[in-house]
């Protein structure tokens, strides 16, 4: 009874990966995602695995329900209670016009209409002092109105509650009494203690919005899985890359808003640890998007500047919860190739998704996609995908690319397909440029770990383009890598609170200590509620710091234990160093401020490490499936196609070649070499001098 199960809901597939950490024995399976009722897809996939759930001690779940509810605006009717003068902060937002030449620009619609945004005449000052008391009579009227209007979830968010939450707590207690605990209540300061009334209020409102739905979903799932014989503990992936018991997420579902994509990053870090690669770019190529995340020294970048639905022209909705920094671009295997008004070829951001999918799926897709281009040029198997589970119709791909692209330019269908591939690769490379070059990092200092269905397909081209020297395609099948990554996550909680402390103040040391003490106390309360003993919790401290007068901050690791006078110099030193990396300058004479105090708690989970594979007597010839005629760099050539599962451990081969995995395809280019390491990872390196 020690198996660990990861179940990850993705856009098209629900992935299952279970492992016995002691023996390394594993079971994986991909099932269909069922968007209307996602729990059905989860249950079907678990059934499909055929696993005896009685031998598992933990099930870790990553889902997209929270993000989908927000994006499709299908959640609870929320009532919001604010401070006098601030009912409109949800609508005013930050007043920016991100789509600046669009004179019909519209802001994101607030999640609570004005008539359900009501004020009470309380006021707390920025130093925490109470200026006007809370009046319970006002609350009574508001609750009556909420009941009359059929409000299903209540959010209370007062100005300056990040400094002093007394009124929010009091109001919460009164509202719960008045509603007999029948309507769930979310308090702003419980979700985050960072300043910024719009961002904090919006975060709390979104929590209130998804809370009833997630509560029902997780409760049903628990019951169903238990019925199937599972007797272990349930954990949900959080956006911070850690996990927490289901009960925590039932109360604060907003913490799991980006739980899907982060598991891949956690997996990449775990793999990096094993193969001793500390600086990683994790590339997750999906069916509609490509995601990239930069990992420095095996530490994911966590921030609380996350937005739902933000892009070049839309500001999106701020969600101030800790999230692993991931960049997403609309470019994946099913992205559509099209010709713009002036006749230039474009790829994405529109995609066909799983249904009907690319033309070559034969399910009625009528637009040329990236996958069609790969099929046409023979770079992925022109007969079947998913290890044979899925039939491919190359002639349909040829037809659609010919008619929609090749004829326009009067070129061959292969040339047109190559054009699509080039532009898709360029899009994927851009995601990496954004997280590296544009943030002061050189991609050449990083190893690319590529997973997802299309990640391994893009990676060798991207590496060429950005001069990345080393690519790793994980030994875990790239298509289920995220589900595996979940098995490596720790129980993690982050507590963040704004408190301005200037390091040159006389009482700075005292203030820093008391703030961290309080945060760590709150952190331990969370773990206590989950039945975890405090001595098992590893605590890490950070602070968002800045030069006085600046608005932007940088995250700085802070020494643990009691801060003394001497520690101040060390903190300053770390800040200057981090600031210089991020912004390329430091101001040694300027006063330094701590703005947000951030405490992270981690309880290490039992790791399901990858075992070394025995070298065997198989030869490369055994792995060759066929020779295939392909089209690459403007010419036809014949390449060997190798079966990934039959590749001998420890070999090195010169490109070009194609390697087929049941969940993905890898193309090794001419200037590249392929190695199979002792774990079965595919390592692609560039030949020096070529």
């Amino acid at each position, binding site marked *: 009874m020690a198996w660990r199960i990861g179940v990850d809901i993705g856009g098209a597939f629900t992935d299952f990966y279970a492992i016995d950490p002691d023996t390394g024995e594993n079971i994986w399976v991909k099932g269909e995602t069922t968007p209307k009722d996602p729990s059905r897809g989860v249950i079907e996939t678990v059934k499909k695995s055929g696993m005896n759930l009685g031998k598992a001690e933990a099930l870790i779940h990553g889902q997209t329900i929270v993000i989908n509810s927000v994006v499709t605006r299908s959640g609870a009717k929320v009532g919001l209670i604010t401070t*006098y*003068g*601030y*009912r*409109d*902060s949800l*609508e*005013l937002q*930050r*007043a*920016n*016009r*991100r*789509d*600046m*030449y*669009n*004179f*019909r*620009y*519209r*802001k994101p619609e607030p999640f609570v*209409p*004005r*008539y359900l945004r009501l004020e009470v005449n309380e006021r707390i*000052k*920025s130093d925490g002092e109470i200026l006007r008391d809370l009046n319970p009579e006002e609350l009574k009227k508001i609750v009556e109105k909420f009941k009359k209007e059929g409000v299903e979830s209540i959010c209370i968010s007062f*100005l*300056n509650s*990040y400094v002093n939450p007394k009124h929010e707590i009091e109001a919460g207690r009164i509202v719960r009494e008045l509603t007999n605990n029948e309507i769930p209540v979310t308090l702003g300061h419980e979700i985050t203690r960072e*300043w*910024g*009334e719009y*961002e904090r209020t919006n975060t709390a409102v979104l929590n209130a919005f998804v809370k009833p739905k997630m509560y029902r979903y997780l409760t049903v799932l628990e019951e169903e899985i238990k019925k199937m014989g599972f007797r272990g503990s349930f954990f949900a992936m959080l956006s911070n890359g850690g996990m927490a018991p289901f009960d925590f997420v039932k109360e604060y579902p907003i913490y799991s808003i980006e739980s899907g994509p982060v598991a891949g990053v956690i997996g990449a870090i775990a793999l990096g640890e094993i193969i001793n690669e500390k600086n990683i770019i994790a590339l997750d190529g999906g069916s509609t998007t490509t995601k990239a995340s930069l990992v420095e020294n095996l530490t994911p970048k966590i921030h609380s500047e996350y937005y739902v639905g933000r892009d070049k*022209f839309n500001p999106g909705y701020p969600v101030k919860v800790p999230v692993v920094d991931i960049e997403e671009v609309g470019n994946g295997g099913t992205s559509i190739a099209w010709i713009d*008004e*002036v006749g*230039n*070829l474009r790829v994405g951001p529109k995609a066909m998704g799983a249904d009907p999918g690319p033309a070559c799926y034969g399910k009625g897709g009528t637009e040329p996609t990236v996958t069609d281009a790969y099929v046409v040029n023979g770079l992925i198997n022109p007969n079947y995908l998913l290890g044979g589970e899925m039939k491919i119709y190359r002639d349909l791909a040829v037809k659609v690319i010919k008619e929609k692209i090749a004829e326009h*330019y009067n070129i061959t269908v292969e040339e047109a397909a*190559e*054009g699509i591939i*080039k*532009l898709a690769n*360029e899009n994927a490379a*851009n995601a990496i440029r954004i997280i590296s*070059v*544009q*943030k*002061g990092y050189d991609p050449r200092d990083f190893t690319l770990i590529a997973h997802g269905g299309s990640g391994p397909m893009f990676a060798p081209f991207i590496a060429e383009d950005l001069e990345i020297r080393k690519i790793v395609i994980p030994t875990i099948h790239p298509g289920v890598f995220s589900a595996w990554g979940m098995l490596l996550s720790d129980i993690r909680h982050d507590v963040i609170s704004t408190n*301005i402390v200037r390091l040159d103040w006389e009482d700075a040391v005292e203030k820093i200590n008391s703030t961290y003490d309080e945060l760590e106390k709150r952190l331990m309360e969370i773990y206590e509620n989950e039945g975890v003993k405090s001595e098992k919790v590893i605590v890490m401290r950070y602070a968002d710091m800045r030069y006085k*007068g*600046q*608005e*932007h901050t940088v995250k700085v690791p802070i020494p643990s234990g009691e801060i003394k006078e001497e520690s101040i110099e060390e903190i300053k030193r770390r800040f200057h160093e981090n600031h210089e990396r*991020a*912004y*390329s*300058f430091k*101001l040694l004479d300027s006063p330094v401020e701590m703005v947000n105090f951030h405490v992270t708690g981690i309880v290490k989970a039992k790791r399901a490490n990858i075992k070394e594979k025995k070298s065997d007597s198989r030869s490369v010839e055994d792995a060759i499936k066929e020779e295939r005629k392909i089209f690459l760099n403007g010419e036809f050539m014949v390449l060997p196609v190798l079966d990934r599962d039959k590749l001998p451990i420890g070999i090195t081969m010169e490109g070009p070649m194609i390697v087929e995995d049941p969940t993905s395809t890898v193309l090794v280019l001419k200037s590249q070499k392929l190695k199979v390491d002792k774990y079965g990872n595919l390592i692609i390196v560039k030949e020096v001098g070529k």
Partner: protein
Amino acid sequence: MSVDPFTLEIIKNGLIVANEEMFQAFARTAKSPVIYEVLDFAVGMTDGQGNLIAQAPGVPAFSGVLDFAAKEVLEKWKDDLHPGDIIVSNVPYYSGTHLNDVTLALPIFFKDELIGMVLNKGHWSEVGGMAFGSWNPNATEIYQEGVMYPCVKLYKEGKPNKDVIDIILENSRLPDYTYGDMEAQAASMRVAARRVFSLIEKYGLDSVLLAMEKLLEDGEKYARLKLQELPKGEFEAEDYIDSAIAQTEEPVYVRAKIKITEDKFLVDFTGSGKQVMSPINSPFPATVSGVRETYMAVTDPHAHPNAGFFKPLEVIAPPGTVFHPVKPAPTSTDWEAIAYATDLVWKALAPYVPEKLTAGHFVSILATIVGGVDDRTGEPFAIVEPQPGGWGAGYDMDGTSGLVACGDGETYIASSEVYEKNFPIMVERYMLNTEDGVGHGKFRGGFGVIREYRILNSTALATLQVGRHDFPPWGVDGGLPGPGNKIFLHRNGKVEEIRRISAEVLKKGDLISFHSSGGGGWGDPLERDPKRVLEDFKNELITLEVAENIYGVKIDPEKMEIDWDATEKLRERLKRERK
């Protein structure tokens, strides 16, 4: 063609990305908050002839100035440009906006051939002049607004030109910031130049030059396609700038005549008032920027704004007018007249291009400075910001509430909590301005804001300027105008209205109350769907009286229902009365 169309596409993207990387690099490394928070800068790249091939403006008011700067550099230095040179210029009349906005230009050479130029124009916090921060509503001539850098070499063949740099720094109240921004600006430009070189290395010079040409070609082709979708003919609009900010006896008359043909988009400001001895004048390049904003809006707001795309556009403004001031007219609060350039073209076209334009918005940014020495710490503090306001209604939608004005873009209005912590003020209210209301109509304007600063310090200095007060945001097709922008000062138990103050001393307990205007309405209010009127009433955006008297809708406030019969009768009566 030596290169296939897809590779060419990738090179084109590379050139555009080079600009985006330059933008990010500058935002990341600049020392002044006005750069990295407000994004008050723009970067761009031209070909060897000074044609803008790509640009990335942080605020739309900068979308027209870079090509003027490039042409200025080429004209002055044509035979004397060398690899490693960087030129600095900020003279508003030739290439600019106000003196604070300083352009650096870096010519790109490949084997002695000038193949392009990289440009970066950013707002420097200090360029000297009569007031801290260099802009001031009281200036009457440009010499009071700072030092002019007349297109001179900042770097010569890679080496800093110390003489020029010394003059610049010696005239700045914040030499550290000035130097830091200048260095960051130069460094970001080198990032872009490097990217161009790596493209040349990878694809060859000819392919890169071809890509530059193709960018311009595509831009022009696309602009012509978009012009086809616009109505052809002549369109006109006129308006007035408040005398209170122009410091004139009469309001300043402004007008625009627009002529759209198959291949031209001509904007003529002839007939607009003379330049004024107040810094609201819009230098000609800034006027072109202002026009380009509306041109982008009516063609395609997401188009790549390059010289090809702007080719059909021609702007005429006679020298000596508010839209083309000549030396020594002051220009440091040029945003007032720039916004009018944008707004006039918008006003002329709105009825004819309804799918792209709305009714008028609040236009003036209610420019605000509140500063002093914080009693709590003994240290100086300063709030410098625009205020948000209401935008106009569309033919099929209500206007958007609480947005920054047309000249601002990805500009964030600060959180009250942050202000209260950082500065000795209390933000008592920050809400939709339902007190002054909006321009009503079949679709109504968006709401402005009420934002109130209570001074908690012993004293504070306030500089404020508010336009579009006497001539409020306009309606379209029977839609009513908005209420106009207002600023009130509550002190000594009295309330006074403010139009323009400079470094006025405020005391503890005084309250500044910003009431920005709601946008104009679109269509007859009597045609507004009564359900929308009910919704506005339910949301406490309008009163029962407004519902009845303006919209002709009878609502039972208890049941929250429309009395349909009474509404029909009332609307008929009002229609007759209004005829």
